[in-house]
């Protein structure tokens, strides 16, 4: 009785917060909105990664690769597969279809490479996923005829329309696009919460504790790990596809290795395996990165002249320090640690 009541309360709270997040999409100025959209996109990726690291105990340093794959799949399907036909309009498929196809294709790729990859454990998997990201980047650079490469890049100017409603216009994402992104964050959150509470969620928790024990208890370890790997890749692919239509321009510069590490920072800050934490981590880290870049872009700071590389140095350096401090002193995540601190401050209440 008590349990189901707290669950209902939590669900109501989540729905209310989600509605607020969607409502906020229409209230922000266009400048703030693009940052807000990015927060939502990263939140979708972070939820998937948090499940993968926190529940299946699989550290992926290549989540940015799936994000990039989703973005390029959606972009290339929209502008047309054949580079020579791209100048002719309508060479590709309907953008809305491309957005649906991108996460499915990304998930399929993850399913194929996941089979050999997930046989690796711990350190090996971390390095292998990082290698995966680098291989994809190399392929994007090398096949520049197909992907546009770094120069001229890939312009995805076709506006995204769903059932006649315009989602992105000539100038990029509209408020409607932002609202859809945050709506999807809410959906992802609910799906993830449902998964955590289900039989599959308990099986995954068992795997995170000990693969051997889980296998002994009759859990099909590799099947569960693969499914979660595919789910998290699909979520990253979906976010990437929506990103392609927000920016309307893709270049490998936007998908560096640092992106993958940034996703890990978001999850580490929010708490491994905490679904809400992943959203908060994504929002906080995206905001912080934006602020640090602005700070670094100033000509001088505290009397020192700042070099051209300052925005990059600031954001990378600060994230590095955050990562080190959080893992060293708050291994369960900054957010759960904060919660513990508040609970400790509160007077102890005896429950009957």
């Amino acid at each position: 009785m008590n349990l189901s009541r707290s669950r209902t309360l939590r669900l109501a709270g989540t729905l209310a917060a989600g509605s607020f997040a969607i409502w906020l999409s229409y209230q922000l100025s266009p400048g703030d909105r693009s940052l807000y959209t990015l927060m939502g996109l990263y939140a979708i990726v972070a939820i998937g990664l948090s499940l993968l690291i926190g529940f299946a105990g699989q550290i992926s340093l290549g989540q940015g690769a799936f994000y990039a794959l989703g973005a390029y799949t959606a972009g290339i399907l929209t502008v047309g597969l054949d580079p020579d036909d791209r100048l002719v309009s309508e060479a590709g498929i309907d953008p809305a279809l491309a957005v649906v196809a991108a996460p499915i294709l990304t998930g399929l790729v993850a399913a194929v490479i996941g089979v050999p990859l997930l046989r690796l454990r711990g350190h090996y998997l971390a390095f292998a996923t990082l290698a995966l990201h680098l291989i994809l980047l190399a392929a994007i650079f090398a096949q520049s005829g197909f992907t546009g490469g770094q120069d001229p890049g890939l312009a995805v100017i076709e506006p995204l329309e769903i059932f006649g409603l315009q989602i992105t216009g000539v100038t990029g994402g509209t408020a409607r696009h932002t609202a859809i992104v945050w709506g999807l964050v809410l959906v992802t959150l609910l799906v993830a919460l449902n998964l955590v509470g289900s039989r599959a969620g308990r099986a995954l928790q068992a795997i995170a504790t000990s693969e051997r024990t889980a296998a002994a208890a009759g859990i099909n370890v590799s099947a569960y790990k693969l499914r979660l790997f595919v789910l998290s890749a699909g979520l990253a692919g979906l976010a990437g596809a929506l990103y392609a239509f927000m920016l309307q321009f893709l270049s490998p510069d936007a998908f560096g290795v640092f992106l993958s590490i940034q996703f890990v920072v978001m999850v580490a800050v929010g708490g491994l395996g905490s679904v809400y934490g992943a959203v908060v981590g994504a929002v906080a880290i995206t905001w912080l990165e934006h602020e640090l870049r602005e700070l670094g872009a100033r000509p001088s700071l505290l009397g020192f002249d700042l070099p051209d590389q300052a925005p990059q140095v600031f954001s990378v350096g600060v994230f590095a320090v955050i990562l080190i401090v959080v893992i060293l002193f708050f291994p369960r995540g900054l957010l759960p640690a904060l919660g513990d601190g508040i609970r400790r401050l509160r007077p102890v209440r005896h429950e009957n």
Partner: protein
Amino acid sequence: MKEFLQLVVVGVSTGSAYALVGIGMVLIFRTTGIVNFAQGSFAVLGGLFMVALVDDIHGLVAGLAAVLVVAFIGSLVGFVAVGFRHRTTPLASLIITLGIALLITSLNLLAFGDRPHTYPTIFDRAWDIGGVLVQPQYVLVAGVTLLAALLLTLGLQRTIAGQALVACADSRRAAELVGIDVRAVAVVAFAVSAGLSALGWVLLTPVDPVNYDSDVRIAINGFAAAAFGGLASIRLAYVGGLVLGVAQQLVVGYADKIPGLGQQARQYELAAALVIMLVLIGWRARNEVHE
């Protein structure tokens, strides 16, 4: 045949430098259980310090100074990476060293900019051995690497500090029981490994320019070399580095010949290296299952 030998010569020298990074990773992993991602950053730091110093002082002194400074930085990294109050798991330590690598990368970008750096080799011409062009610098890298690996093995067997490291590698708990301070061991292991990595790139930089963000590539290749021996054997890590270096050169060298691929093959150099590494560690993981 000449072309094959030429590629092997280049491969052995870059492979030797990867081997040094891999040996460092093995040393740290065996003694502390940590896979050190910052190993690549130590190599980059070694190369960059050398470039900065070599104009002002004698090359030998500059190289020695670069190696010692990086070894000192390595000892600091080791002190932090072990974690505090036994709460830090080995995988958490990997993430910590990843953070440290990022920090070093950003500081390198600030200090050295985003251009590749190199310095002129002291040898004025290459040797021509039966039509195969051999840069003396390649021989220097390969020779010094072999010497360093041998000295390390000897040091582990013959010195007290080396014995402590070996004891820690055998059983950390038992080592603690006989009074060996695990943190002190980590500091020593990190310092030695950092020095080795730096040494590799102090020597390799004239033939392979180093950039502030070369660390990821070096760390991944070093890990692959170490993974060749299951992160457990210094000898196999050395072999792994050489195999990796030669295999990469051969793939890149001969991919040019495949019609239709031509010019694009060069751009796949890193990708080829990574695929080789994935196959290597996949093969290794399979062996572990059977053991």
